[in-house]
């Protein structure tokens, strides 16, 4: 697949310090018996080889932290013995701003939370506010929303899939997925006039309608994705080097994932058969048949909940999103794309809690209205916030290089962690 020398996993050094380098939870096991027992080694060299714990900072400008995340790691040789993520570098007071602005003026800020999946964020926010205020959305607008949201999901997963290659030491897949991603961004640019931040889903509908040209362009994009996916799989999922680097690494089992509130691809990779789009349908997702990839134990490489399965779930979700977009484009009804929204929108007193399936997991909005034109409380559950917290448990005992593989496979966006 590549001419580069195989990026072998860092060799596991046999335990040399008494009490140190405990084999962490079956993560690393020396393939052969240690050359020297620790006791022998100590007898031979006395105290001269004693090691000490080293505290290192990873980030906030470390490329593998995908943004401004700082992780303080305590290491014993190559093994992480404790770690503490420090978030908040990108805090922009999204919830405070949400309380200070009229509902519709907050929507552009929503884009900037998870800036790689802006449309999915808008979709959730609009549905939550519409439920609160009883706004009707026209049929065609619902379809357009689903089409845009799924195109955004494809783009977001392309980013995740490609950048993950970079995390584990392969540059080629990144360039390949970004070629397709650019086409997808162009597609959204043509309807929304922005490359990453769109503000295209509005209260009661969408800003612009799909044109026949756009639909043709979208079909071409989907075909290209389908044609290229086997190429990505050859480069990554089926690649022996990639499998060695990701299988049985960073295992988040089912119970751990649920207890930490991990959602999205990471939860499905752990073997939980749950997708909000199918199991708690919002918008019109109940009209589209699609499969939910779940990392059950079985024929696949690795074990449920490891880095390879998370990557696999994302690739399979791209396929399913292509299917949903095709279906929606085929059934796209005629009509208006903007419903009636009062000029001064004041939803009645009440509360709403709504979760949607973002590419990264379950995004939820908790909106409390006191009957004013701006919300009393606007609370956002960013999926990456819970997803990254789990590394405080799962990251302990891994090698430093595997911690990079683990964090990359969780596909976090710090804009959403910090909001």
């Amino acid at each position: 697949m590549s001419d580069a020398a195989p990026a072998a996993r860092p060799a596991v050094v046999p335990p040399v310090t008494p009490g140190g380098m405990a084999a962490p939870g079956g993560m690393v096991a020396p393939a052969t018996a240690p050359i020297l027992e620790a006791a022998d080694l100590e007898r031979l060299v006395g105290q001269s080889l004693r090691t000490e714990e080293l505290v290192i900072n990873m980030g906030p400008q470390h490329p593998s932290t995908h943004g401004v995340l700082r992780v303080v790691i305590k290491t014993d040789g190559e093994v992480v013995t404790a770690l503490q993520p420090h978030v908040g570098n990108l805090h922009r007071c999204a919830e405070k701003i949400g309380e200070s602005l009229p509902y519709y003026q907050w929507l552009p800020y929503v884009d900037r939370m998870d800036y790689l999946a802006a449309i999915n964020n808008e979709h959730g926010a609009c549905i939550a506010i519409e439920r609160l205020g009883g706004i009707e959305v026209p049929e065609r607008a619902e379809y357009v929303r689903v089409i845009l949201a799924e195109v955004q999901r494809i783009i977001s997963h392309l980013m995740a899939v490609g950048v993950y290659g970079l995390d584990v030491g392969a540059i080629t897949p990144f360039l390949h997925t970004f070629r397709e991603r650019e086409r997808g961004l162009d597609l959204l640019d043509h309807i929304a006039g922005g490359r990453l931040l769109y503000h295209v889903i509005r209260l009661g509908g969408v800003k612009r309608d799909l044109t026949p040209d756009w639909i043709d362009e979208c079909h071409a994009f989907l075909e290209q994705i389908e044609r290229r996916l086997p190429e990505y799989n050859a480069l990554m999922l089926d690649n022996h080097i990639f499998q060695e680097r990701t299988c049985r690494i960073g295992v988040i089992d089912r119970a751990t994932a649920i207890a930490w509130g991990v959602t999205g691809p990471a939860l499905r990779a752990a073997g939980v058969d749950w997708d909000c789009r199918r199991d708690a349908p919002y918008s019109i997702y109940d009209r589209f048949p699609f499969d939910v990839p779940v990392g059950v134990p079985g024929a696949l490489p690795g074990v449920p909940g490891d880095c390879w399965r998370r990557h696999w779930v994302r690739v399979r979700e791209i396929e399913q999103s292509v299917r949903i977009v095709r279906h929606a484009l085929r059934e796209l009804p005629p009509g208006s794309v903007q419903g009636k929204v009062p000029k001064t929108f004041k939803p009645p007193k009440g509360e709403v809690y709504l979760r949607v399936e973002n590419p990264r997991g379950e995004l939820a909005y908790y909106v409390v209205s006191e009957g004013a034109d701006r919300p009393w409380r606007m609370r956002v559950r960013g999926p990456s916030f819970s997803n990254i917290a789990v590394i405080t448990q799962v990251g302990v005992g891994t090698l430093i290089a595997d911690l990079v593989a683990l964090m990359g496979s969780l596909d976090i966006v710090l804009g959403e962690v910090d909001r």
Partner: protein
Amino acid sequence: MTDATNPSAARGLPADPAPPADPVTALAARKLAERFPGAVVEQALSGRHPYLRIAGDRIVQVCTFLRDDPDLAMDCLHLVSGVDWPAKTPAEGPGSIDVVYHLVSYATRPDPAYRKAALKNDGFVVLKVRVPRDDPEVPSVMGVWVGADWHERETYDLLGVRFTGRPPLRRILLPEDWPGFPLRKDWDYPVEYHGIPIIPPEGR
């Protein structure tokens, strides 16, 4: 009420209550009333956002029960939030803060009838704890769901709710020396922070 032919009733859900209550919240309310009398101090079983208001000192008991009960199996804490309710007049006292817990279950549900019934409210059980605004303190549920850690830290960071019985609370999003708790309704924008002028938004 109990109808053996009704799959919801067979699983312990109310068959057809009137007025239409959220089945999962209603089941939780019934079980809690049997098991912990007095723990639920107020309940709203119907409407868009049904919830149970729990006495603050019982929250850990209640959460442990909801997690371990086989019918409810609320194995995931989706979100912890705080809502500030300052007193409208001085006579009302200091006002209060609601700590809101959204619980959800990912346990396998082979019964489609349960699934359908549960999803009317997306399957959430919402617990609220009211704490006084001048001394907001509530026991931590980190021992029940370890994922509560960061959510509680965030609620402390932005609203100043102190969670007890857990590792020390530290700010998570804001700098350690940030003045006050910004999501409190009476929080004033500081004039400057380390020499950086702060311009409050207009219309406040």
